[in-house]
């Protein structure tokens, strides 16, 4: 065939869309939506990965940390003493400053001259860079995206709340976002401190530290990689769901366009177009559509990602302490990948179309095809495939039960995917069976019977939309109840943990004086001093380190004991008395990773050597990625030399006036800034705000998936409108008025949607159950109770019905406006 023959044939194939633009719109929308959500999620992931890559760039050269045993920050003299002893430590100061516009910025001060590593230092740079870095006005090094957020870019002179100015800004591609690096002298001045936070040393440096110092091995620090991975896996799963739902639409649209063009295809074959040429042309058509859909999708995806990214960044920062730029940085392979996934998905959705075109029986010219017989067989195949998937789900569930709780995240998602897909596949056979049975029972109500039979007839075309709907609904229900349950639990837990009315963070040197002064105040009922430190958890033989853990010292006053959220204790023992007596409590994360439970013992490294502690209880510690061990502040001070930390203050009476008075007095007497004092209410508000942002993206994606399902439904209905006319004409001809037909149609669809939604409820609950019992534990390290929210379920069902009726309204309206002669023509044609 000549090129022009191909062109003619392709134009002939495409002419179909000129007469049926609705199908084209449906196809492109399906592709667009699928591609947009998927690429949006991938854009976020790619951007985050770029941030992590910069953060991890030199993990091979991670530095050990050298700290004073007494927890005091190292002084300049300490630093000199160590250096003069030949111990090559380097000072680092880290802190947070607040910019004039309220944005926080992490500032890190370094001494480039002593910082270990290949970087060594380069004392006398030929250019002025080093001198600029070391000397006033100094330099602030920032990731380019952080820098460009300042109006004026490199010329900006950002001012802090404290009135100080950041040193002149210079971009540095290698830095993670929202971190400012500068000379230690500049950073100390900016942070208003006189001493570094700690010292660092090259891991390979073999030195003997004086007794008063302790070295924290870099490789003992928990890598956030795995945790952020799970977050991104969550996102990816969500994006994949959207992609699948979108591809459902595409598949439906493609089947429809093929079916309507079967005659055309046969005619073309009869006119001398080869079968291979036809398949190639159809593939070319797919490719063309795919490119349009993918490109628009990717562009919208990037836009979507930009919209969601601030929330994602906030979530990651809150959950894992990972910095993420608020600007997208997309590598070239992102664009290619987005295109490939969309085209691949399209090809998957279109493969059956191509296959059918390739096997086209040209002698069947003019015969109407036996769609319904095939649909029966298809239903059987769906039921079979669905059962197989369910079987896989069960097998996976059984296998995961055997695994340690914090593993198998990916398999957990696979389990959920098979559950959802299996259920989606079972939906059409189930609906068909229900309709057949119901139609039998309605012999005496002919119109209703006809309605059900007719709905069964529509099922082949509606089934894909209904499958999309059940996926979207169950995801909505599942994620909704997970988030809702989490919120309930979290708020409850906040109430329990935030016992004090005020939290004060005094500077170390004034700690004693402030404590003494507070004790004398009439308004102060109780002080709850806390301390924090780190150590290593040893194996039972106290030989090797299993992981590094946080130590948290609390003061178990009655007010605190009453409400502290304990998850697991020994039945016949008061855990608080045990704590006083030297036992420890561990957080849920640590219990899950180590399998420790109350009554067992754990061994910790202390300055005095390994010490074994009995475990008295497990407590809930939502949002903490690390394992943590809680003991009394006194014990933490004595045994681990932990530095003084925040003090919780219980007041009476608990009024705003008292809080104001106390904070004023502290400010005047000890020169404490307002930010060293936080009241409980503000703390709760902040926590809740972060919580809401954390799940904003989940909600957004969920809502979008439901919208996609709505679009699937609408497009299916629009696409089948001409066929509907053919089915309605005889009924109309035998005397059923058009408005009755319309109302029946709305009932049919509403009924189908309700049925689907009702079936989605148990599926959604199964999903929620998998999320809280498995995915959450694997991804975040804590378990949540399963909450069921009937109100939420009702809302979702109503929403489904609403979406369906909304989608049904347009075809119904068109039917109403249809002149009767068009219905008459249906008889001519046949």
């Amino acid at each position: 065939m000549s090129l022009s023959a191909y062109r003619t044939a392709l134009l002939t194939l495409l002419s179909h869309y000129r007469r049926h633009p609705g199908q084209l719109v449906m196809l492109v929308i399906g592709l667009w939506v699928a591609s947009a959500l998927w690429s949006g999620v991938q854009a976020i992931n790619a951007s985050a990965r770029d941030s992590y890559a910069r953060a991890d760039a030199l993990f091979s050269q991670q530095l050990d940390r050298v700290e004073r045993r007494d927890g005091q920050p190292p002084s300049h003299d300490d630093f000199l003493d160590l250096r003069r002893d030949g111990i090559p430590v380097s000072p680092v100061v880290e802190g947070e400053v607040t910019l004039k516009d309220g944005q926080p910025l992490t500032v890190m001060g370094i001494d480039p001259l002593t910082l270990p590593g290949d970087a060594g230092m380069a004392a006398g740079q030929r250019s002025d860079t080093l001198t600029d870095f070391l000397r006033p006005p100094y330099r602030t090094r920032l990731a380019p995206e952080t820098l460009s957020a300042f109006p004026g870019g490199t010329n900006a002179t950002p001012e802090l709340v404290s009135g100080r100015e950041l040193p002149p800004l210079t971009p540095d591609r290698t830095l993670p976002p929202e971190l400012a690096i500068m000379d230690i002298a500049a950073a100390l001045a900016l942070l208003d401190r006189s001493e570094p936070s700690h010292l660092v040393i090259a891991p390979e440096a073999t030195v003997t530290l004086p007794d008063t110092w302790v070295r924290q091995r870099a490789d003992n620090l928990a890598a956030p990689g795995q945790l952020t991975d799970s977050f991104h896996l969550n996102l990816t799963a969500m994006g994949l769901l959207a992609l699948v739902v979108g591809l459902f639409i595409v598949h439906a649209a493609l089947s429809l366009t093929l079916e309507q063009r079967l005659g055309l295809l046969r005619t073309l074959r009869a006119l001398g177009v080869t079968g291979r040429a036809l398949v190639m042309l159809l593939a070319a058509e797919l490719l063309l559509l795919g490119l349009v859909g993918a490109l628009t999708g990717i562009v919208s995806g990037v836009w979507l990602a930009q919209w969601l990214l601030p929330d994602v960044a906030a979530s990651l920062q809150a959950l894992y302490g990972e910095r993420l730029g608020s600007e997208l940085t997309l590598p070239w392979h992102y664009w290619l990948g987005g295109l490939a996934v969309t085209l691949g998905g399209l090809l998957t959705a279109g493969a059956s179309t191509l296959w059918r075109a390739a096997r086209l029986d040209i002698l069947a010219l003019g015969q109407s095809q036996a769609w319904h017989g095939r649909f029966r067989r298809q239903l059987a195949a769906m039921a079979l495939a669905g059962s197989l998937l369910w079987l896989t789900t069960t097998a996976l569930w059984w296998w995961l039960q055997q695994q340690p709780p914090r593993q198998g995240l990916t398999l957990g998602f696979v389990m959920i995917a098979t559950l959802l897909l299996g259920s989606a596949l079972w939906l059409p056979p189930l609906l068909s069976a229900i309709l057949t049975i119901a139609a039998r029972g309605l012999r005496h109500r002919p119109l209703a019977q006809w309605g059900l039979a007719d709905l069964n007839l529509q099922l082949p075309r509606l089934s894909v939309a209904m499958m999309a709907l059940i996926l979207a609904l169950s995801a909505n229900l599942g994620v909704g109840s997970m988030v809702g349950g989490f919120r309930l639990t979290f708020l409850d837990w906040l109430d329990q943990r935030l016992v004090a009315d005020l939290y004060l963070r005094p500077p170390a040197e004034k700690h004693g004086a402030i404590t003494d002064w507070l004790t004398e105040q009439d308004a102060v009922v109780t002080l709850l001093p806390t301390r924090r430190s780190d150590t290593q958890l040893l194996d039972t033989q106290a030989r090797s380190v299993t992981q590094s853990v946080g130590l948290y010292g609390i003061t178990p006053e009655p007010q605190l004991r009453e409400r502290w959220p304990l998850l697991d204790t020994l039945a016949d023992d008061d855990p608080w008395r045990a704590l006083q007596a030297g036992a420890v409590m561990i957080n849920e994360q640590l219990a899950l990773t180590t399998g420790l439970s109350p009554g067992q013992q754990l061994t910790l490294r202390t300055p005095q050597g390994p010490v074994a502690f009995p475990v008295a209880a497990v407590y809930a510690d939502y949002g903490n990625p690390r394992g943590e061990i809680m003991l009394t502040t006194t014990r933490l001070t004595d045994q681990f030399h932990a530095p003084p930390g925040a003090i919780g203050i219980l007041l009476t009476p608990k009024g705003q006036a008292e809080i104001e008075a106390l904070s004023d007095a502290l400010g005047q007497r000890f020169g404490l800034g307002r930010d060293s004092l936080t009241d409980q209410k503000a703390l709760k508000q902040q926590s809740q705000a972060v919580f809401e942002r954390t799940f904003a993206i989940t909600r957004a994606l969920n809502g979008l998936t439901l919208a996609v399902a709505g679009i699937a439904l609408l497009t299916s209905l629009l696409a089948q409108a001409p066929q509907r006319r053919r089915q309605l004409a005889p009924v109309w001809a035998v005397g059923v008025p058009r408005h009755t037909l319309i109302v029946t149609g709305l009932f049919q669809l509403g009924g189908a949607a309700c049925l689907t939604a009702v079936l989605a409820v148990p599926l959604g609950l199964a999903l929620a159950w998998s999320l809280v019992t498995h995915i959450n534990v694997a991804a975040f390290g804590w378990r949540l109770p399963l909450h069921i929210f009937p109100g939420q379920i009702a809302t979702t069902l109503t929403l489904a019905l609403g979406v369906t009726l909304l989608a049904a309204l347009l075809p119904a309206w068109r039917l109403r406006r249809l002149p009767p002669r068009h219905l008459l023509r249906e008889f001519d044609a046949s």
Partner: protein
Amino acid sequence: MLELRDVSKSYATPQGPLSVLRGVSLQLAAGESLALMGESGCGKSTLLHLAAGLDTPDSGRIWLADRALDAMNEAQRSALRRHRLGLVFQAFHLVPTLTVSDNLRLQARLAKQEVPDWSVELLERLGLAKYRDHYPEQLSGGQQQRLAIGRALAVRPNLLLADEPTGNLDERNADDVLALLMELVVETGSALLLVTHSPRVADPMNRCLRLHHGRLETIEP
């Protein structure tokens, strides 16, 4: 132009194999017209499909324009169809989404042998000129069949195969269409193999054969 030699074809049915053609031989010279008659289901259409290379015989050979169909692959048969054959069906098989004008030119364009003047003339003579930008569904049955004939003749085929071309038309329309068809066939020098059950339609043909129990019988005019 067309030669069938000892062609047999049977189909599998639930009641066992059904022999449709049993050793059929037939010759059709260039410019000749032949009517193939027989009751419905007697295998007329099968013979037509075989002649068009749409289907293959169980035994026997078929030559089309001096080329043996069984010696050709699918692509060659398609090309032959495109360039040398015109097909007219009872149910028209127009492309509903192309205009009248585009439908008429479709095969000629696929074969890359469109003669624009001839297409315009065909439109005129088929009485479709004023509907050139309409879609097939906006035409009457007779007009649609005329368009289908126009599509087949736009390539100036060596052989026109017509399957009950007037089967869907009323008598007057059928006469008009048939007259037009004969006129154009003679003009283009195409051979014509026309399948019909109606003696009235078979009448103007040079020859007339009847297919009966899978064998051909000559009918004297």
